């Protein structure tokens, strides 16, 4: 490690530690990202019809399909609702500017926010998997490596999408409006109202081209023991690259 990476590692770690602490002080973020997805799973799973095995779903129950769906709910909430509020707030209130006068680049604040939201999604995922397993007897992902890969790609796509929302929103108000506008279509694609596996064929084909439609399919496949389709993983990676490029191009520091 060169001396310059050494000298920036300590402040970067300090910024991350601070952002983790601050995230833990936000009851809204804790509830909507960490608790709500699992709560949704519990509510849906307590409907008897959701626990009946369905032949058209290859013998799976709806509650089995909903575990990946609520994981995506956590991701979408973190990416397009929570993170853009934080980032645009930091810009609007001059926090990034204040940091620009120190030897540490304000970009370390942005990357810390991304990491914090990514970690929150991970915790939320573990919670949903655990409750699914313990309460509804949902089997843990059988193709674990594939599941982790799909999960990581999906989190990256969610953060890239959130970065675009932050980049195009001049204020937290605008970020809130754009975030909500993006939120519901993304939730639909993730299969909150109707899992992608149960959508009519043509609709499903289209939805699978969106980041969270593809993520839903990839996570579903890995959960039931298959390697996630490369097509779905490719769609996720392509969205991540495209959205990151747009965010980097459009982001303004002031």
């Amino acid at each position: 490690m060169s001396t310059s990476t050494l000298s920036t590692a300590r402040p970067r770690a300090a910024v991350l530690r601070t952002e983790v602490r601050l995230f833990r002080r936000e009851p809204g973020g804790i509830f909507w990202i960490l608790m709500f997805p699992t709560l949704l799973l519990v509510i849906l799973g307590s409907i008897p019809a959701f626990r009946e095995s369905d032949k058209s779903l290859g013998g799976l129950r709806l509650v089995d399909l909903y575990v990946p769906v609520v994981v995506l709910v956590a991701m979408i909430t973190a990416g397009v609702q929570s993170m853009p509020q934080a980032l645009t707030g930091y810009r609007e209130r001059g926090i990034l500017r204040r940091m620009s006068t120190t030897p540490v680049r304000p970009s370390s604040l942005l990357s810390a926010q991304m990491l914090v939201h990514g970690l929150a999604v991970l915790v939320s995922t573990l919670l949903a998997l655990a409750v699914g397993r313990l309460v509804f007897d949902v089997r843990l992902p059988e193709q674990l490596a594939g599941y982790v890969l799909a999960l990581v790609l999906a989190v990256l796509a969610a953060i890239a999408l959130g970065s675009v929302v932050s980049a195009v929103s001049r204020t937290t108000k605008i970020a809130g409006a754009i975030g909500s506008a993006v939120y519901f279509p993304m939730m639909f694609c993730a299969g909150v109202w109707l899992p992608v596996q149960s959508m009519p064929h043509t609709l499903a084909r289209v939805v699978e081209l969106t980041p969270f439609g593809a993520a839903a399919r990839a996570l579903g496949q890995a959960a039931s023991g298959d390697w996630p389709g490369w097509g779905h993983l490719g769609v996720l990676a392509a969205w991540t690259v495209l959205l990151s490029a747009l965010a980097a191009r459009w982001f303004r520091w002031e």
Partner: protein
Amino acid sequence: MCRTGSGRDPRAMTTHPVIEVSGPRKSYGGRAVVDGVTFAVEEGEIFGILGPNGAGKTTTVECVEGLRTPDEGRVRVAGLDPVADHEQVSRVLGAQLQQSELQAKITVREALELYASFYPHPADWRPLAEHLDITGQLTARFGKLSGGQKQRLFIALALIGNPRVVVLDELTTGLDPRARRDTWRLIEDVRGNGVTVLLVTHFMEEAQRLCDRIAVIDKGRIAALDTPAGLIRRASGSTVISFTPSAPLDEDELQALPALASVAHKDGRITLAGTDETVNAVISLLARQHITAHQLRVTDATLDDAFLDLTEASA
């Protein structure tokens, strides 16, 4: 306060002024907001930038901080370019911005520790917090602090890297008079520790009390650069004479007084601005005409008067 003295470059201490601003220009939408401001600040000085709102003060000092890039002209801090050598400059320059905040839920202590971790040789934040009288707020969140406490925290953050130079932009705006006076004492202490201070203000009293030299900026240009006393002397009406005459005075004779800058009548009271020469002339005029001057007052003009004079002259 707690300077370690390390991290200083002895070369820059002796030969060059610590801040050099040579004619930067900055335009927004085709309008020049800063138009060729030139000054140099010596090590250990408190240098003031004074001017009306919108004069270009913040734009000027933000070029010094490297937050803005001038369209042309040269700015150096400790011999370094604040934009190109941003990282090095930010190690020797502490800034308090006119408008900035911290995360609403960060505590004072966390903010101090976080910002201390950014610097290679930070000050110990404990004595700093004590000196700034924020030890009682260490566990309070930024969003819950009063305006004065926020300002004091920002001063602490500006000093936490053990800088050679601090830039303070409208530090006392929004503070009550008492907090303002406390802050002034603090700035004097900071300078007492050998730190150079670049102070932006629009309070005359503040500039007059604190600054060794002042650049008066108006419409993006320097209208005058001098010591506070020099600026006052330079203004055309540096002495003010006021009295209530026992009988009316002839207006033509008043106007003919030497070195007269202005005459004002109000409720039978006459106020003249001029120099010592004007004072002598008006006294002999009154004596010649056997007029008594009731409540005669002779006062020195303040920086306020000088400022109005200087910024009006360039209007």
